[in-house]
């Protein structure tokens, strides 16, 4: 068994609007004249510390958790899972 850091990123699916990112872009960044920025997308991240046999099983387990307890709402968001050694 080993400890892994698993990073779960939850963001809106393509096509679903992201008012948070848009507001930061329009009301803060562009108003501050940072016009090299063309887009800001917001997301939520959860970092799991998990004890598993392998990177693969850590990844699978976290995926299972995400689907089972609805860490993300599949109607609007998607998750990306990245595993790192702790």
């Amino acid at each position: 068994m080993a400890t892994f850091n698993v990073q779960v990123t939850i963001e809106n699916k393509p096509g679903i609007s992201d008012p948070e990112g848009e507001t930061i872009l329009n009301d803060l960044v562009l108003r501050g004249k940072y016009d090299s920025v063309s887009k800001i997308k917001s997301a939520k991240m959860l970092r799991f510390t998990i004890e598993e046999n392998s990177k693969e099983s850590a990844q699978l387990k976290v995926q299972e958790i995400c689907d089972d307890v609805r860490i993300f709402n599949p109607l609007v968001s998607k998750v990306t899972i990245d595993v790192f050694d702790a």
Partner: protein
Amino acid sequence: MKVGVVVFPGSNCDRDMFHVLTDVFHLDAQYYWHDKGLPENIDAVILPGGFSYGDRLRAGVIAAHSPVIKDVQKMSEKGIPILGVCNGFQILVESGLLPGVLLKNDSLNFMCEWTDLIVENNQTPFTNQFELNQKIPIPIANGEGKYFADDETLKSLQKNNQIVFRYSDVVNGSSNRIAGVCNEDGNVVGMMPHPERAVESEINPIDNKPSSLIFESLLEQMGVKN
């Protein structure tokens, strides 16, 4: 007739709802803590508003995993009237008992204000006393109250007459201005605005009659005369 008010850790409109059920409409109401089951002999279930689990991760998602939800599910299958208000609506949606999802308001802020609802479906256990298109002045108070569903779902909601309430104006960016929906059978209703805050004239500066009809509909449904 017995109405169950389900209380989750962080619910904060449970007492308000209880007061309205018992003191205003003289119903036999009972609180049920989320980690226990519901008894068989309940005639209606209400999931009140608040911040279950502090709305962490997403409003309603953690409460949707509470043990009591399995019983709510069973009752919904039996056709028992179930109403989710605000956080209760979010919980029903997150537990799959109602379609769609509630997202952050377009303002990205918590919004507490009075608004007008339009009744779109007067066939549910909570709306049978309304005229179609009747207006209800009522307060909203939420941060994640923007109803969202994809086009296909929206079409089927429309087709099955599952849209129960709409806002009369654009309030928070909800798809098709939806403020409340029901399941296909019509017995499970969820709404973001707070009827329990609007049924008493003392605290309703506009008109408390329309909101009262939500509870009178329930009385009618159960064959109880008030």
